[in-house]
């Protein structure tokens, strides 16, 4: 297949080559079935539409989008995308010395050499089905480049709205973030279904964290009812750099979060956390990989899930410690609470260690709310259902509390209370 006429956004001769390569790779890989080890508990093929419309839809900004944008603080920096198309008129782009921020399409047009230095460099096209698909058919996304030693205090929001009019629409969105040595930035990727119907998207982010740089990222999946979303986040962290990511999922039809961090320089740190709530038939899958390549690095994984009704949670947390990665300190914790008898969770820690002087530990727990705690709350007059919500808050808040970006932490703390119908 010739992919030329499928494509409308990011384009130059160099990307055309990458896209063709990605397309060829995807053609070989296809959409995985549950026979594929990494998709064993998430039969994605049966969950997505049979056919895809991959061309971006230049749709009208509806009231749901307008109202949401109007509710945001007027000063908050943001890039807004609707069905994979950048909307400058809804965006507030910060003008800060040393920060280049624009749509990916614009970055390719104005500064191709900088973009090409990083673009698609963290993607393994031969094994990542959806990253390959995304690379072949990418519509648009955000490009952020932060020069050496620049520190941005205010978080920058990347809002992705979806209002697909056709059930086969499969938006392909993409971010590229480069944080140079000594620089610091806080980002939020916010995904929202701005319609009442099912939407599908396939999002890829590549993030480069330089020496002694810091990147804090929060992935918001809190207005994602009827969303079928595949997320791939690939990060690379250099010496003394640190990367923090929290993925917060409150609603989903099916959401897959592939998150991986490669620690390539000494003393680098990766902190990956997630909180997910599954209701009705929601299916939420977190596939985490921390790859310790350099020595003396540290990593931490903290994942918590609450599953109601017929919901399913999947946690697969890999820690790879390569031969040279001596003195690695890697920790993983995954816990899930089943709030109904028909909810399921599949939890699989996977540690592959090739160095001999390392500290690695993992803990996984799946259970119900603590009966003693429940009795304690009831013994103070709190109704059983309310007591359960309160204990769920106690369980979940640890992940929110873990978020370093203060306004986001506060926002999510309030959202969590709202989600659990706690009015204090």
């Amino acid at each position, binding site marked *: 297949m010739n992919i030329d006429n499928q494509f409308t956004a990011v384009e130059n001769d160099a990307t055309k080559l990458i896209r063709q390569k990605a397309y060829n790779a995807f053609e070989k890989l296809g959409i995985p079935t549950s026979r594929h080890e990494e998709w064993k508990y998430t039969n994605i093929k049966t969950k997505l539409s049979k056919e895809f419309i991959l061309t971006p839809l230049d749709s009208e900004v509806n009231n749901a989008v307008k109202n949401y944008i109007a509710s945001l603080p007027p000063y908050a920096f943001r890039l807004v995308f609707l069905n994979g198309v950048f909307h400058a008129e809804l965006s507030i782009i910060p003008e800060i010395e040393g920060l280049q921020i624009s749509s990916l399409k614009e970055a390719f047009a104005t500064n191709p050499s900088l973009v090409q230095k990083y673009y698609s460099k963290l993607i393994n096209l031969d094994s990542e089905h959806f990253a390959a698909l995304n690379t072949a058919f990418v519509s648009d996304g955000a490009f952020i480049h932060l020069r050496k030693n620049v520190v941005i205090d205010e978080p920058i929001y990347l809002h992705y709205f979806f209002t697909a009019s056709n059930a086969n629409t499969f938006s392909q969105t993409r971010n590229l973030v480069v944080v140079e040595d000594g620089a610091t930035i806080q980002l939020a990727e916010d995904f929202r279904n701005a319609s009442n119907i099912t939407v599908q998207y396939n999002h890829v982010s590549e993030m480069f964290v330089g020496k002694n740089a810091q990147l804090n990222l929060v992935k918001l999946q809190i207005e994602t009812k009827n969303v079928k979303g595949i997320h791939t986040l690939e990060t690379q962290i250099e010496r003394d750099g640190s990367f923090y990511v929290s993925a917060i999922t409150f609603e989903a039809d099916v959401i897959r979060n592939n998150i991986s961090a490669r620690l390539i320089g000494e003393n680098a740190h990766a902190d990956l956390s997630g909180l997910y709530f599954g209701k009705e038939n929601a299916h939420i899958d977190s596939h985490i990989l921390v790859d310790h390549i350099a020595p003396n690095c540290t990593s931490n994984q903290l994942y918590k899930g609450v599953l109601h009704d017929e919901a399913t949670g999947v946690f697969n947390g890999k820690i790879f410690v390569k031969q040279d990665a001596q003195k690695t300190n890697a920790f993983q914790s995954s816990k899930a609470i089943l709030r109904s008898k028909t909810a399921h969770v599949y939890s699989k820690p996977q540690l592959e260690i090739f160095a001999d002087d390392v500290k690695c530990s993992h803990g996984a727990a799946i259970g119900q709310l603590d009966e003693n705690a429940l*009795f*304690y709350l009831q*013994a103070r*007059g*709190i109704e*059983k259902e309310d007591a359960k919500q309160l*204990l769920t808050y106690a369980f979940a808040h640890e992940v929110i509390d873990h978020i370093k970006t203060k306004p986001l932490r506060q926002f999510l703390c309030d959202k969590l209370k709202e989600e659990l119908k706690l009015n204090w």
Partner: protein
Amino acid sequence: MLLEVKNLNVKVNQKEILKDFNLTINAGEIHAIMGPNGTGKSTLASVIAGKKDYDVTSGEILYNGKNLLEMEPDERAREGVFLAFQYPVEIPGVSTTNFMKAAINAKRKHEGLEQMDAKEFLKLMNEKRAVVELSKEFTSRSLNEGFSGGEKKRNEIFQMAMLEPKLAVLDETDSGLDIDALRIVASGVNKLRNSNNAFLVITHYQRLLNYIVPDFVHVMYGGRIVKTGGKELSLKLEELGYDWIKEEVGETV
């Protein structure tokens, strides 16, 4: 009568713990229950509060004339039954303040009242904190998380002060307390006692009863009350231990 326990038989894991247990408590009274370990004191407290792990095989508990055993634990609490836990539970992320807000408003809802407004609630908190000499910082911390044993017990009495129960059961509230904490806890109880409420104080030691003066002292042994007296009975137990009781009931251990 506020509480009437009649011929109560309770099993835990097929083992009989309470055997034909009887106890009557009127408003305005303080009852102390003493006795050696494993005689069913804490079981009695848990059964009154409504803990699920107990199998009541026969007998009844009437509270204000209502069948207490038919009520859920939260309903009992809203009706004015309070249990000060021997081992209060730690709840991370939920402050004592927010916990009390939830508890007070649950009670008010039950009584057909509106939620308490913020100003009134703060005033109540300040007033009741003073009862057990708790700092403001203390109630904004996560409930019982990282609290010392004494802090947990004071927090229990604080909660009791907030909720103003009709019947408060103190399950070994004195265990693990130093003398200052013991004094604070006891003075809290004394400030709260009035002619409309009653206390059931479960303890191993006479020490607490120097501060909280009971109207009745009951000795529990083998799942039932074997002796009842006044404050002087607790002094005798302190001096002589429980062996003479065991001899009196015709059993030796």
